Structures are given as C-alpha cells and as structure tokens.
C-alpha cells in the first residue's frame, strides 16, 4: 500500500494535471521518472532506449490524462503505460529486425543460446566476464514469455507487491504468484545454459 504522503502528492498531481498545469506535469516527471525509467530498463537492453521510452510515457500521460478515471492509483496507471510503451518498443524493434532479415538474407535471427558468446577466456571475476553475464541475464529475461517477463520485471525492478502487480496487469494475486514462480524457473533454466557453456 502506498504511504499516506505519496497519496497526498498523487491527489495534488491529479488535480493539477486535470487543470492542465505545466507545473503539475513537471512535478509528476520529477516524482515518477526513476520508477518509469527503472521499469523500462527491465524491458530493453540500453539505458538510452529506456530514457526514450520514458519520454514517450510522460508525453502519453500529458496527452491522455483525461482518460484517467481515478478508479486505480495514479502509480498503477503510470506503470501500465510504462509496460505498454516498453512492449510496443520491443515489438517495433522485432519488426525492424525481421525486415532487415528479409533485406539481407545472409543475416540470421539468433536464438537465445546461439547469441551467447562462448568465450574461452570467460572469467566471472573480471569486468568483461561480469558484462557478459549481465548480458546473459538480460537476454534470459527478454526470452521469457511476455506476461512472465512483465510480472518478473515489476517484481524485481520495481519491487512492487503481488497486489500492486495484479492491479497493473489487471490480474489476480494467485495468477501473479504463478507467473513469477514460472518466470524464475524459466530464468534459472536459461541461465544454466549460459553457465554450462562458459563455466563447465
């Protein structure tokens, strides 16, 4: 449950935004930017992309604030927009990748296992090893089914409770529990593939 202070801030922001106040919008950006960028970071590979998506999120909030009915928390609504914009970005990137595949027949769309660099020099303790592992973790998260990925990111990146995640995803708490459990299992399987290739 959101603390009382944040609830008061949200109420003031909602009133200001309904009145079309730019000051209220600036305040919203300052209050929520870290949460939005953190959510987007969970879905995309680069920090720059995460910030680009975050800009789109806030523009969407400004343009369509009249659609916010107030039956959910403001934060829930903002997380929903963040997730949708991130998923749209991924779909657009995938379409661009498919187009480039048809334009350049020699290129291949690699699977999760093919894409992993099998480095004989891999050492988990040096910077290169850590960045390869970080990339492997990111790819493992990206390869999860969409709902599992969303639930996992909202849990792991945003530290949302199961109730909050259920509100964002328009789902139930048992469904969210199941999604996160399966996400973790799948993540472990995918990470084990990388681990076997590089460590054993």
């Amino acid at each position: 449950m959101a603390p009382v202070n944040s609830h008061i801030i949200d109420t003031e922001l909602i009133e200001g935004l309904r009145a079309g106040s730019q000051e209220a919008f600036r305040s919203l950006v300052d209050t929520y930017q870290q949460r939005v960028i953190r959510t987007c970071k969970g879905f995309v590979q680069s920090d720059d992309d995460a910030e680009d998506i975050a800009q789109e999120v806030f523009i969407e909030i400004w343009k369509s604030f009249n659609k916010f009915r107030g039956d959910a928390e403001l934060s829930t609504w903002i997380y929903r927009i963040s997730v949708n914009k991130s998923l749209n970005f991924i779909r657009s990137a995938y379409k661009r990748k498919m187009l480039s595949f048809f334009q350049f027949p020699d290129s291949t769309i690699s699977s999760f296992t093919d894409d992993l660099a099998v480095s004989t020099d891999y050492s988990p303790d040096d910077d290169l090893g850590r960045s390869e592992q970080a990339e492997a973790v990111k790819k493992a998260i990206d390869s999860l089914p969409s709902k599992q990925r969303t639930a996992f990111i909202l849990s792991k990146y945003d530290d949302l409770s199961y109730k909050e995640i259920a509100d964002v995803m328009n789902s139930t708490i048992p469904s969210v529990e199941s999604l996160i459990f399966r996400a973790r299992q799948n993540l472990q399987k995918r990470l084990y593939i990388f681990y076997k290739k590089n460590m054993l």
Partner: protein
Amino acid sequence: MKCNILNSDLILYAERSLPAERRDLLESHVSECEECRAFLAFLVKSMTLIDKDKETDQNPFLYTRIMAKMEADEKQTWSQHKSFIPALVFSAIFLAGILGGIKIGKLYSGTIPGYYNDLQEEVSYFNDISQESIETFFIITNEDVNE
C-alpha cells in the same frame, strides 16, 4: 538429497525468497555439493547484476527533453499535413474538370436545329419492325413472289 529436487529452489534462495523450512535443507545440501554450490554462486551474482542494472539516477533535464520532444512532434505533424495540400489541390482541379466537361456536354445536347429530330427519323427507318405487325411480316404476297 538429489540435486534435481533442490534445483528449482536455487534461484529462490539467490533472491532471498525461499521459505525458511526449505532454506536449511538447501544450505545443508549446498555445503556438500560442489556443483550446486558453484551454480548458486553464479545465480547470486546474476541477481546482484539485476540490482545493479535497476539503479537509476534522477535526470534534471528529463522534463526539458520531454517538452522539446512534444514541440518537435507537433511541428512534424503540421509538416505532414502540409504535404497533403498539393495533392488536394490537384484532385480539386481534376474534379472540377470532369464536372465542367459534363456540364458543357449537357449544354450542347439538342441545340443543333433539327439534329435530334432528324436522328430520330433515321433511326426509325432502321427499326421498321415497329411499322408492321409480326403477322403481316410473315404474309408472303404475290408481289414478293414475282420479285
């Protein structure tokens, strides 16, 4: 305890979300199994990398960038609308030409003296079946035979 039974608990342990009753069992196994111990260390490091990745600094310029982007999007929308104007003008001229042609054509229909009536007379000669009934058409007269 076999590794595969505890396998799915490893990531929960790495995330510090394994229930207490299973934690002791896992720790006991991991202390004896080198393979599980090594993979657990790998998973713990992976979760730490996620914690590192999610760190975000407050960006004081984000609001300015958002406003600049909104302005740029508005300008782009207007220039996209402007590009339709030549096509609309051409379509209007084309449509005016067609309508004008139809209008002019209607103005000239039946204005040449006697043209329409003479045409009707000529057409009637080619359509002489209307001049006699079908019964008389089949009656063969002496005149026809002598021809």
